[in-house]
């Protein structure tokens, strides 16, 4: 039986983390000599999933599922899993996947491990490595149930092209009224703004920036790099920036390719939350700031001088490397 993966399709395309989940599923499929079957809800251009190794795509087209609904999506995915008799199910670590995965796990009587960072250590017993204590440690965990659900931690396995021929099949789940007990009233989502969850680069400001009026240069830097903006906990507690930007242990985790911390000292809770980012840069006038111990690159100096200069030079760099 094939390895099963749920692929999120949003704003007219498959999410990058969904393609990473397909890559991961293909990695497992190769370990056990099988193929990958993906399911997508109201997606299009399913062939794209073939680039990352999905041999078969179950396409669910259903107008009642145009908006994400955890209960209904979990129900639809569970039925697709049963149809395929799949035993290993892979999902991304997006907010929506983390919402629906526990529902799916109970529905399928499947053991579920989230924040998985690499391919299974072994198939029998089925053992995976995942981050715990907000990236301060890893756990090797065995799943003992017949059906297993893996939530892949963002930007750990990466995108791996593995082109196969893809066949698409329509699938119509039977949904019941309880699936729709949660009704969407409104969605308030910034258009054309990179989210921390999807961003490859995150630019983050701390209390060293002295006040919300000084965020112009941070937003400019983010704009030049196509990055998301974020902030430290004190900044969000002071109301300088919205809660949605708070990254750290009690805020959002960041797993970007590049994280630039400006005027952030680097409290242990903050460092834990951003630890899965690949490359970390710190700009801070205090050479003793703990962030320098966690960073890959650093500049000791005044952010109010360095950031504007960085912005100007990056603009030139971007033009030259466009």
């Amino acid at each position: 039986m094939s390895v099963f993966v749920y692929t999120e399709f949003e704003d007219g395309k498959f999410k990058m983390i969904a393609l990473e989940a397909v890559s991961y599923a293909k990695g497992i499929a190769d370990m056990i000599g099988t193929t990958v079957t993906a399911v997508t809800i109201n997606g299009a251009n399913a062939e794209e999933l073939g680039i990352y190794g999905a041999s078969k795509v179950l396409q669910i087209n259903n107008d009642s599922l145009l908006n994400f609904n955890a209960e209904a999506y979990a129900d639809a995915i569970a039925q697709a899993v049963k149809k395929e008799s799949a035993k290993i199910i892979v999902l991304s670590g997006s907010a929506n996947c983390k919402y629906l995965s526990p529902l799916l796990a109970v529905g399928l009587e499947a053991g579920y491990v989230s924040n998985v960072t690499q391919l299974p250590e072994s198939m029998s017993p089925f053992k995976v490595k995942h981050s715990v204590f907000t990236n301060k440690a890893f756990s090797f965990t065995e799943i003992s149930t017949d059906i297993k659900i893996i939530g892949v931690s963002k930007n750990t396995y990466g995108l791996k092209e593995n082109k196969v021929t893809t066949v698409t099949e329509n699938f119509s789940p039977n949904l019941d009224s309880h699936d729709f007990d949660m009704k969407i009233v409104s969605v308030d989502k910034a258009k054309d703004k990179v989210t921390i969850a999807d961003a490859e680069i995150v630019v983050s400001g701390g209390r060293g920036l002295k006040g919300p009026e000084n965020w112009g240069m941070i937003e400019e830097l983010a704009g030049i790099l196509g990055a998301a903006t974020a902030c430290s906990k004190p900044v969000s507690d002071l109301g300088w920036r919205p809660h949605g930007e708070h990254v750290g242990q009690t805020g959002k985790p960041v797993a970007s390719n590049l994280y630039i911390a400006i005027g952030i000292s680097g409290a242990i809770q903050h460092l834990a939350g951003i630890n899965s980012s690949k490359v970390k840069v710190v700009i801070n006038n205090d050479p003793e700031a703990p962030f320098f111990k966690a960073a890959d690159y650093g500049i000791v100096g005044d952010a109010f001088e360095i950031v504007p200069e960085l912005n100007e030079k990056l603009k030139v760099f971007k033009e030259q490397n466009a």
Partner: protein
Amino acid sequence: MKILVCISHVPDTTSKINFTEGDTKFDTNGVQFVINPNDEFGLTRAMWFKEKQGAIVHVVNVGGPETEPTLRKALAIGADEAIRVNTPATDGFSVAKQLAVVLQEGAYDLVIAGRESIDYNGGMVPGMLAKLTGANFVNTCISIEVDGEKVTVIREIDGGKETLSTSLPIVIGAQKGLVEESDLRIPNMRGIMQARSKPLTVKEPIAVSPETKAVLFEKPASKGAVKLVTNVDDLISLLHNEAKVI
């Protein structure tokens, strides 16, 4: 309205994380335990329902006797009663199964549990609990209003928020935003004194087979020293040529 707040007993956010017994167990030596921050945001919102809408608030923990000080703290903050299910918290599924029994026996209308505990970060107990009991469920909840049976919740989504309407009973996965950091309450002396005489019921667990088992822990490899640069040109060059991230 009857509210159940699920409380995880977790190491303080500043704790150094170490393991013992051949890296198979978390080393509690010298570690300060607290109410899981996401649960504390939920508990604080529950206090609002108690004060404004006359709700009854119970707190529950699945764990051994060592977790009782954490439950007493929740009582000192203002919860009316506490329940401890007397079994070590193993995997998320087992905890959810134990909590499902408590939920059903207590006929709670609203169940609040942190969207994840800051120790094992599983993020699965609230959703599993909802599914096991047939309650509605919203995760990453940053606002909840209850009017009779009608419930309006706001959840954080990637890049924004979404408002949903539904009905009781409901389980919410709580997080910061449900209340502000400045709304959190430090128990006062009167609260602490009262907490001593509030009921803390120890309940024996049901038999559950765990679905997952942590067999070994590992700490991340230590990283190399930071590369300090003195000018912006060098930084851009390193990010482009060495790190290859721009």
